[in-house]
């Protein structure tokens, strides 16, 4: 038989489709941000609407595609055509067929429209009957990290409870999230719990979601917001009622202070790898990925082998290197408001806005050269006219190219130890 490229390509495509099916059903729809693996009522409602659209369009597709394929094959010219070949009937169409098809299309859309309208109202805000039970938090987007504010948890003399990049919520309760931004537009998106809503300047947006069970969820900024948009990520941790209350209670406490003990430095203190990492090298271990919730839970308690001397040194360095002008550490020296509140930093599972697992080598990597981890970040380039690691010309607000803050390995090691002691 003669080799036909068309036939060959068709067969190859069919084979590929068959081989691809298990991949699709297996890995392609079950990631940590899958919109199919829903864990709450809002995401579930959105998925249900999506399925309705899929079914309606699939049925129409099968019908139209079959007719199209049939027509293409059935009415294919037999043999070559030239001007002398008798022409087919020059029909201009049939108005009844046309109107019928228009009517059928409109009917099909009604199937989609009804559940769509219901879901628009349901997903917009916490349903009335559950409003009394809802927990309220504020999420604020900044280039390129998230601040979470707990208006319900006021701390005596220090305002509301603040966390950075990790939103801890009660499971089984609706959570209303007020969305704010301090600079450009960002979007709050935790696919397993619900679709995204933008954080718009001069606009009081909100969304609601609910986690059915305790769990650890991936979220990410979904509106392009500048240079490091790709690495502006966050986590949502849902806890049972008791665990949540305990977490809040701990978070409201001022930062933990470690008293130096006159011991020799512990052998473990320098045990991590400090060799510089390549740009964009991954920030997660396989163990963390496998059990993120367990990893988060383990971080809630102080390390057993803390180096108290190093922690004290780190606290001094944190002040001397000017970190305190931007970072708050309640009860310690930090008083800044431009950067994430680090009062309980050691109890967070990620750093640099969800980009890296909060391990000592990762924190070291971040402190030594933040621009290598997250290009253009404000700790490096400065923020609101204040210099970061790089010097800033106060007039033009442009970087002068001079170094303003330098941190060496020894200093970074002490700061890492200090920050990790803040449970």
């Amino acid at each position: 038989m003669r080799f036909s490229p068309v036939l060959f390509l068709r067969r190859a495509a069919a084979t590929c489709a068959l081989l691809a099916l298990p991949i699709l059903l297996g890995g392609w729809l079950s990631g940590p941000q899958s919109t199919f693996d829903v864990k709450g009522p809002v995401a579930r409602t959105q998925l249900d609407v999506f399925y309705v659209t899929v079914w309606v369009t699939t049925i129409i597709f099968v019908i139209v595609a079959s007719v199209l394929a049939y027509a293409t094959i059935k009415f294919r010219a037999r043999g070559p055509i030239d001007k002398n070949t008798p022409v087919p009937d020059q029909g201009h169409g049939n108005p009844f067929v046309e109107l019928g098809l228009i009517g059928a299309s409109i009917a099909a859309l009604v199937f989609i429209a009804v559940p769509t309208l219901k879901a628009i109202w349901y997903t917009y805000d916490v349903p009335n009957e559950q409003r009394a039970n809802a927990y309220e938090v504020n999420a604020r987007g900044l280039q390129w990290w998230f601040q979470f504010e707990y208006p319900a948890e006021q701390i005596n003399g220090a305002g509301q409870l603040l966390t950075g990049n990790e939103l801890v919520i009660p499971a089984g309760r609706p959570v209303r999230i007020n969305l704010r931004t301090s600079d450009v537009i960002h979007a709050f998106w935790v696919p397993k719990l619900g679709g995204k809503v933008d954080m718009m300047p001069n606009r009081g947006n909100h969304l609601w979601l609910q986690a059915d069970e305790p769990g650890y969820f991936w979220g990410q900024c979904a509106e392009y917001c500048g240079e490091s948009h790709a690495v502006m990520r966050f986590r949502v941790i849902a806890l049972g009622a008791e665990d949540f209350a305990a977490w809040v209670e701990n978070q409201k406490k001022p930062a933990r202070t470690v008293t130096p003990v006159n011991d020799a430095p512990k052998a473990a203190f320098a045990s991590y790898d400090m060799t510089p990492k390549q740009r964009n090298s991954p920030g997660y271990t396989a163990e963390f990925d496998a059990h993120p919730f367990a990893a988060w839970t383990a971080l809630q308690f102080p390390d057993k082998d803390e180096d108290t001397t190093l922690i004290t040194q780190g606290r001094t360095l944190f002040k001397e290197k000017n970190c305190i002008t931007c970072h708050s550490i309640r009860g310690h020296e930090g008083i800044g408001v431009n950067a994430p509140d680090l009062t309980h930093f050691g109890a967070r599972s990620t750093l640099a806005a969800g980009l890296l697992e909060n391990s000592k080598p990762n924190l070291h990597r971040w402190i030594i050269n933040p621009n290598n981890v997250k290009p253009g970040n404000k700790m490096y380039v400065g923020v609101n006219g204040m210099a970061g690691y790089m010097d800033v010309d106060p007039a033009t607000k442009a970087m002068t190219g001079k170094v303003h803050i330098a941190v060496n390995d020894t200093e970074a090691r002490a700061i890492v130890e200090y920050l990790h002691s803040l449970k």
Partner: protein
Amino acid sequence: MATATLKSADYTAPHAAKPASRPWFFTRPSAKTGLVSWLTTVDHKKIGLLYAVTALIFFLVGGVEALMIRVQLAVPNNTFISHQLYNELFTMHATTMIFLAVMPLSAAFFNYMMPLQIGARDVAFPRLNGFAFWVFLVGAIVLNVGWFTRAGAPDVGWFGYAPLTSTAYSSQFAGDSSTDLWVMGLQILGVSSVIGSLNFIVTIINMRAPGLTMMRLPVFTWMTLFTAFLIILSFPAITIALVELMMDRSFGTSFFEVARGGMPILWQHLFWIFGHPEVYILILPAMGIISEILPTFSRKPLFGYPIVVFSGAVIGFLGFGVWSHHMFTTGLGTMATAAFSLATMAIAVPTGVKIFNWVGTLWGGQISTRTPMMFALGFIWMFMMGGFSGVMHSAAPADAQQQDSYFVVAHFHYVLIGGSIFALLGGIHFWFPLVFGRIVSEFWGKLSFWIIFVGFNVTFFPMHFLGLNGMPRRTAVYDGNMGWNSGNLTATIGAFILAIGIGTYFTVIVYTYLKGKKASGDIWDARTLEWSVPTTPPPEHNFHITPTVHARDAYWYEKTHSIEIAAEKAKHAQEEESHGGIHMPSQSWFPIVTATGLLIGGLFFTHHHFLEAIAGGCVMLLGIIGWAFEGPGGYHLHIAKDGTVTGGEGQDEAGH
């Protein structure tokens, strides 16, 4: 009515009385070949080719940008390019493909084919037509010049959402002008599009051949008309938005400046009131091309012509009422979300109607699957898929998960590549014999189609799953633990297959242009007037004799009623000769001079050198003054019985 132009009583010839002597700078250039002929041309066919070549070059530039994006995303946490460069690439890929590739390529077809399809000798305002092209080129230069500066190319996204575009957030360092270049470039491109569109509208309304009533217009001409109306109605919105943004950035106003009470949401409304009709500006010309190819290769009229035309109008109309579906996540509130959701679903109806009618056109025909037909059939399949994922977006709650994810990227590439690009590539094959008198090899044409078709699907089909699996757009890196690795790698492999397909396509086209098989006349047994030209490529004056129209598919009718038509045409020839012969427009230097002034002014303005910018403005003004005072120009051609053409620029006295 078009017939009126033939009554000699209405006819006056201002050019007949030529001033005895004019200053040298008012002398009309007369070169018909060489560089000067291209720089000063007013011939719609030459301008069409200028558009086409420029657009195809930018299509390849945008393609290279896309490939760099795909290489970066091939593996997780890749270090191939920096975040900053990635952001510049996706901004410029979109801007280039929309404004510098698909729109001008559509404009190329409008320019070349529309006057031929309506039996006209040129567009209504030939010099303005040249000006539209040169202004387009200026805009393209301004947009891309950033690549060669320290600031780099624009990096705010093709949608440029405020307040990321404000000086506070979009300047990496003092003097970063990339966003200013983006604003100025788009503004200039808008000028070009509006000028071109007004020209097409006036041409279609006024210059149709005798007997060519509106409901006999070829569908491609109808779509040209709708697209032109969409452009003149939608571009003012973005023009206003860009002026406001420019004022904010250059003169410290506060339309979008949050700190001074500006409203960033205003930008989004203005942008998408332009941006959604823009989607139809990109697809309606493609639908027009498909509606020409399908009947020709089915040897049957378009099924339901009035409904196809009317649905084009409905799409254009509804296209202005659905802009906020790009903004479902901005917190519109329930009622607005519901309204825009339903309006978006409604627009699926006229779009679906077109698909039904194309299938109806095939039904009962004699389908020959030549290369243009392959692209047309590929268009229907791919456009259907893109249309269905579009319906999925219209359901706002589902869209909350899809918005700004790769699902959207998959959707609009199915519509823009599977739709617009497939149709435009098919259109090139379809009209290539007419424009160049050569025909593309069937084997190589089909091979390039199949590689493009496979590569396109391998690239973009997995993106549906990436998006539903939570991968956001415009992200330079992703982690390896998100389940996106194999999908991205597949897409990157597909992108290279697609690139090979496009490479094959253009190699074949260039080869055919240089050495391809000669083809002359009506090789497809076509149906519309552009195929009735006396020679391929068509002569400068398009038709020896103005055609006469008695039916839709005018040329098809002419082929079966040749004696009747010949008699009427002989009458036309006589009338035309009785008032001086075939009247042709003179070439002019002033369109390109005026555009050059715009380039100088634009570039200096974006860098805040206002004095030099004023100098550029003076050059522009000089061009406009010269344009106004060089006179209407024009000359006559005469066709002898044997088809020889006499007459030309400056020979009118001798000719009479």
